[in-house]
C-alpha cells in the first residue's frame, strides 16, 4: 500500500513547502469561502517576504 518512494516524495513536498499553497487553499475554503484566495504567485511571494523579514538564526 505505501510505496517507499512515494512516501519520500510526499515527505519532500511537505518539508520543502511545495504543497504549502494547497494547504492554504484548503484552510481558506473552509474558513472564508466568501473571499477569493490569493493566487499561487501572490501566496508564495507573501510567504517568502514574511519568512525572511524575521530571519531568526541558523547554526554555523
Amino acid at each position, binding site marked *: 500500500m505505501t510505496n517507499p518512494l512515494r512516501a519520500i516524495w510526499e*515527505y519532500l513536498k511537505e518539508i*520543502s513547502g*511545495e504543497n504549502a499553497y494547497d494547504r*492554504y487553499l484548503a484552510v481558506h475554503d473552509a474558513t472564508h469561502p466568501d473571499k477569493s484566495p490569493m493566487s499561487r504567485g501572490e501566496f508564495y511571494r507573501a510567504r517568502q*517576504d514574511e519568512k*525572511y523579514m524575521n*530571519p531568526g*538564526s*541558523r547554526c554555523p
Partner: protein
Amino acid sequence: MGNSLRRYGIWVGIAIIGAVCWGVLALSRGETVNAAWLLFAAIASYAIAYRFYARFIQRRVLETDDSRATPAERLNNGQDFEPMDRRVLFGHHFAAIVGAGPLVGPVLAAQMGYLPGTVWIIVGVILAGAVQDMTTLFFSMRRNGKTLGQMAREEIGPVGGVAALIAVLSIMIILLAVLALVVVNALAASPWGAFSIAMTIPIALLMGVYLRFLRPGRVLEVSLIGVGLLILALVGGGWISESSAYAEAWTFGVNAIAIALIAYGFIASVLPVWVLLAPRDYLSTFMKIGTILLLAIGIAFTLPSIHMPKATEFAFNGQGPVFAGALFPFVFITIACGALSGFHSLIASGTTPKLIQKESQIRFIGYGAMLMESFVAVMAIIAATTLDPGVYFAMNANPSLLGDTVQSASQAVGGFGFSVDPQTLTQTAQNVGEDSIIGRTGGAPTLAVGMAQIFSGILGGPALQAFWYHFAIMFEALFILTTVDAGTRVGRFMIQDLVGNVVPAFRNASWLPGNLIASGLIVAGWGYFLIAGVNDPLGGINQLFPLFGIANQLLAAVALTVGTTILIKMGKLRYAWVTALPLLWDASVTLTASYQKIFSTNPSLGFFAQRAQAQQSLDTGKVNDVMAALGAQSLDDVRQVLTNTTVDGVLSILFAAMIIIVIGDAVRVWFGIIRGGTEPELSEAPHEQSRLDSEGREIEEREPVRAGS
C-alpha cells in the same frame, strides 16, 4: 512479563555492543583501527541516551503534558505559529542547526588523535548539547516561542538579558569571520574551486527569478534544476583548471577572495531575499542533506581504517601545530557544534517552538536532531582521521611553518613527529586536481580529501577523486556562504533593532539608509577579522578558531544558566543538576580556555605573551627567535601580530567577563529563591486544554474531562 524481559533484553544487547566498541577503541594497540567500531560505539550510545536519559528528562524533569495546547495550536495563524508534523519539523530543525560547524571543529581537533574528539562528541552531546537544545526548546515553547535573549531578561534580569544580546552579536561576528576564512583557504589558488563557487551566484539568481515569477512555489523543481546546474559548474571547473589560460584567470590570492566575500556579504544582505538568499537556502539545504547522506552511505560501505593515532602527544603537551593548547580545555572549545553548541539555543528558542504540535515531541525534535548533528561530527572525525597523519599535518599546520615546497612541508611535518615524503604530498594534490595541498588550513580541504577518498571508494574510483574533492569543497563553501549571507542579515536586523531604540526610523527593516548602515557595520565587523585572519603570520585559524569556540560556548552558558534558573523556579531544584552540571563543565572549560588565552606566558598560546614578544621584536628592530618560530618573518609581520593579539586578547577578556556576569547574576537569583526570600516568578503561558490528538488531528466534539492540572 516475558514482553518486558524481551524489551529490556534488546537494551542490554545494545549496551553490550556499545561497551565492546568503546573497549576496542580505548584498548586498540594496532597501527589502524576500523571506523566501524567508532560508528557503532556512537550509535549504541545515542540509542541508550535517547531511550533512557532523554525520556527521564522529558517525563521527570520537564514533565511534558500532551493535554496542554502548544503555542502552535493556541496561536495558530498559518504562518509562524502552526502545528507542524513532527517528522517535517524534525527535518527543518535539523537543517537549521547543522552547518559547517560540526564538520570543521572535529577535523581541527583530530590533531590530538581520534579518541579525545570522539569521546567529547558523544559524551558531550548526550549530557550537555542535546540537553541544552531540548530544555531550551521546552522553555521557549512554554513561553510562546520567546527568544533566548527575552528569556534571559525575564528570568534572570536585565543584566543577563544585555549580556545575552552582546554574546549573540559578538559570536555572530567571529563566527562569520571564521567561516569566511575557511572558504578563503579552500578557494585560494584553486581555479576549479573558485570557478564553481562563483557560478553558484548566477545559478542562485536564475533560481530566484524562476521561483518568484516563473513558477512560484515550485521548490522541488527549481532545486532539481539548481543541483543539475551545480554539477555542470563543477564539471566546468574541471575544464577550467586544465586549460592554462583560463586557469590563470581564475586563480586568486587570499586577499582577493576575502575582499570578494566581503563585497558579496554586503550586497546579499542589502538585496531583497528572493534574489540570492532564498534560492541559496534551498540549494544548500538539499546539498547539505544529500551530502551528509552520501557520507554516511560511503562510510558504511567502505568502512575505512583510521590512521591517526588514538591520542597524539599534542593532546598533552599543548604544542599542536593546528591550534595551540592541551586537551583540556581546548578539545572542548574546538569541537562545539556536534557536542555542545550555544548557537542552537537561538534556533531552539524562537522558530521551532512555535511549530510543535505536542509537548512530548521536544524529545524527538530537540534531543533527536542534536544526536543527528553529533553523528555528522563523528563522520567528520572519521573522514579526517582516515587520512595519512602526515598529509593531515601538512594540510593543517600554520602555512608559514610549512614553507612553500613539498620538501619544506615534509621536513616540517617531520619536526612535528610525523612523517610524510614529498612524493606523497605531490601525489595527493594531483589526485584531487590541485597544484598543492600544503597549508590548506580551516578543515574544509582536509575533510574534502577524506570525503573524496571515501566517495571514490564507492563510485568512480581514483579517476573521480578530483571531482569528489571539488564536490565536497563546493558543498561546504555553498552552505558556508549561505550562512554568511543569512548571518549578515540577522546581524543587520539586530543592529537595526538596537539602534532603533535611539533612532526609531532604524526599526523599519525596509528603510534603505538604515539597511545600508547596519549591513555595513556587520560586514565591517566580520570583514575586519577576516582580513586580519587571512594575513595573520601566526595562522588565522590557529588564532581565531579558539575565540569562535569560546564565544559559542559562552552562548551555551547563557542557555544553560537560563535553563537552570527556570528549573529552580519551577520548584525542581532536585533535578536542576540536569542543566547545572553541563553548565559547570561548560563554564570551567570556557573560563580555563579564556584564562590560558589571556594569562599564559607560553607565546604559542597566550595572546598577551605573543604581544609581548612582538613588542620586544619591534623595540629591538629585529624579529626575535620566538616570533620567528611562531611564523612571523619580517617586522611587518610583527606589527600585524601586535595588532591582532591586542584585539584578540581584549575580546577574550570581554567574553570571560560576560560569562562571569551572566552566571553570577543568575546565582544571585537562585539563592534568592532557595533561601525563600524571593517569590519565584514563572512567565509561562497559562495552561489551555489541547484539542489535537497525537497525530495533530482535531479531536471531534468531545468536551475535555479534566481542566487545568
